[in-house]
């Protein structure tokens, strides 16, 4: 099992400290661990891109950060939240912490599929008013803020407020949801595939908007997606999930140009994009493991060209070499030769 060490890419001022967090479900087929003893620090004010394919545990990570894991899932471990006002809060301690107080006010979330996050029978304005009053905010001041937010997001405030969710297009409702998430001025925004259902141009525009908003308001953003290129330029740091564990964490440009984990490198080589020469792209052999049936030792070993006996026996911990770029692999030094990055050739030539 993973040994505890201080690692996870030395973060100076963590707003979140996630320690040994697991989420498991008891299924007929066996115990299914969809998040496996993960450790992660999230820096205040950063944009952290959490990348994972389907079945990697990424949505579960989002739920865990908000202590919103659905029954019958069991969430264990420690999550410490350190907001601006200085009180360190143990998020998972139900007795001490009023999670409802924290949710939305300090940590807000934007999930995929804005349409289903709204109540179809209420207007957008009603959503805002309800949110403000439930959290005991000054409703009128809040509505002013809401109008400002909507217009920052390039929406016609009056028109949107007066509409019902189904009257808005996908792009508009997703932006309205982002505005709703920001109206209580939270410190953290957790976004799980917020642009998945949107078109290319809208997607890109929203990413730009998120970047602006994050800068203006000093937000910490956790952006979860399966689409690595999407978050590559937005995020300060990237964290890669595979088989319910983090396999790599580091500054984005370092991860993109010099990934240390064989999975990350393989993923970069297999992701369709316009820059990589087509002949050089390589699919990843094999498939991701079922949570009931995660391989012994390093969970990536069945698909890894570097795998040997050590990999089958021991699960490598997530460690860095003193820099802030960590990977969970026994053979980090050999990765560069064994799994050449196709993209590197392009950038080096520039």
């Amino acid at each position, binding site marked *: 099992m993973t040994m505890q060490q201080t690692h996870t890419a030395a973060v100076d001022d963590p707003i979140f400290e996630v320690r040994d967090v697991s989420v498991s479900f008891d299924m007929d087929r066996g115990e*299914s661990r*969809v998040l496996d003893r993960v450790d992660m620090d999230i820096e205040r004010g950063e944009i952290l891109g959490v990348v994972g394919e*389907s*079945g*990697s*545990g*990424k*949505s*579960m990570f989002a739920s865990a950060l908000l202590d919103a894991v659905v029954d019958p899932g069991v969430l264990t471990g420690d999550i410490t939240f350190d907001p601006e006002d200085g009180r360190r809060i143990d998020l998972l301690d139900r007795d001490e912490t009023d999670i409802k107080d924290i949710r939305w006010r300090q940590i807000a979330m934007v999930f995929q599929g804005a349409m289903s996050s709204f109540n179809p029978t209420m207007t957008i304005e009603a959503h805002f008013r309800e949110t403000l009053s439930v959290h005991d905010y000054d409703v009128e001041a809040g509505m002013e803020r809401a109008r400002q937010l909507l217009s920052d997001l390039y929406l016609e405030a009056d028109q949107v407020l007066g509409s019902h969710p189904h009257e808005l297009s996908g792009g508009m409702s997703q932006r309205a949801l982002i505005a709703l998430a920001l109206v209580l001025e939270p410190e953290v925004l957790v976004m799980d595939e917020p642009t998945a259902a949107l078109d290319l141009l809208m997607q890109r525009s929203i990413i730009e908007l998120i970047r602006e908003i994050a800068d203006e308001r000093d937000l910490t953003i956790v952006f979860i997606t399966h689409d690595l290129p999407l978050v590559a330029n937005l995020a300060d740091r990237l964290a890669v999930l595979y088989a319910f564990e983090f396999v790599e964490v580091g500054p984005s440009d370092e991860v993109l140009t010099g990934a240390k984990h064989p999975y990350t490198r393989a993923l970069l080589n297999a992701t369709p994009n316009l820059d990589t020469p087509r002949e050089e792209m390589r699919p990843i052999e094999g498939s991701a493991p*079922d*949570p*009931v049936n995660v391989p012994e030792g390093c969970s990536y070993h069945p698909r890894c060209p570097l795998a040997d006996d050590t990999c089958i026996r021991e699960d490598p911990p997530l460690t860095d070499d003193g820099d802030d770029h960590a990977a969970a692999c026994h053979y980090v030094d050999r990765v560069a030769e064994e799994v050449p990055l196709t993209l590197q050739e392009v950038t080096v030539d520039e």
Partner: protein
Amino acid sequence: MAEQNSSFSQSDGSAGGQGASRADLYREWIDMALLTPIRVAWDDWRTQVGSIIIAFYLLMGTVGVALVEPPTQGQGPRLTPAFQDWSVPLGTNDIGTSILSATVHATPPMLQMIAAGAVFSTAIATVIGTVSGYKGGLTDRVLTTFTDIAMTIPGLPLIILLAALFDPSNPALIGILITINAWAGLARSIRSQVLSLRDHSYVEASRIMGAPTRRILVDDVLPNIMPYVLINFVNSARNVIFGSVALYYLGLLGGTHENWGIMLDGAYNGGAIYSLQVIHWLFVPMIAIIGISFGFVLFAQGTEKLFNPRIRARHAETVEDDTAPYQE
């Protein structure tokens, strides 16, 4: 049996193809089409109990009528209570007819009625609903109008009228009469389900392959509406049961044969509800009616699972265990 030679080039690494003999195919077919459904259905206690009850009634209606003498007057002393005189184990009515005889001999016509009525109404509803939902256009409009008319004509008065006009004595005809417009509601429901199924990707794929419409309806559409059809079959059966009992009770259908409804009518008029001594006259047919109805309901609830491929896969021997991959 000798294997056929493939007329296509074999790709390397293909371990299959050899060794699939006719016997293997046959065994597989039996497993998938017969044994597995039986296994799945039997797995549920409701099917077990339901089929036992139905089997009991079937026995009663076949073997029973041979073993028990037909009901006539004076088989025993009048108004004998149940469980006293073992020549008339369930007692007698006011003219001395053995209630056991009457109950047993009422079963075959009842079964015929149920079969005819339920099959008729379910079959019509399924055909009309499916064709109208799938075809659309003019066919749909015509069939839907027809369905709507059938649906809005008030059921009971229509049945009473037809019963009075035709005075049917054939139980099958009576069964059909009772469900004469009950099929309309089911047809409408099936039509809506088919409307949405019609645009599912795999149905569209079959259309694009140029499969003939009847093949698409049987292979792609029907299996997905079967759970619904099954429940409605059972409801029709119950409609027939209660409907026929009501008609006989009300005296709208003449009695050339025994019927539990007639027995109930007789018991009621004979004052059986006032006296505990005579209560058996009322209870026995009541229990008979409730019993068969309950049996049908249980059976349907249990067999509904048949149409779930996940459960079929788990029970099939020739298929691996349910290996559904993790969906996030």
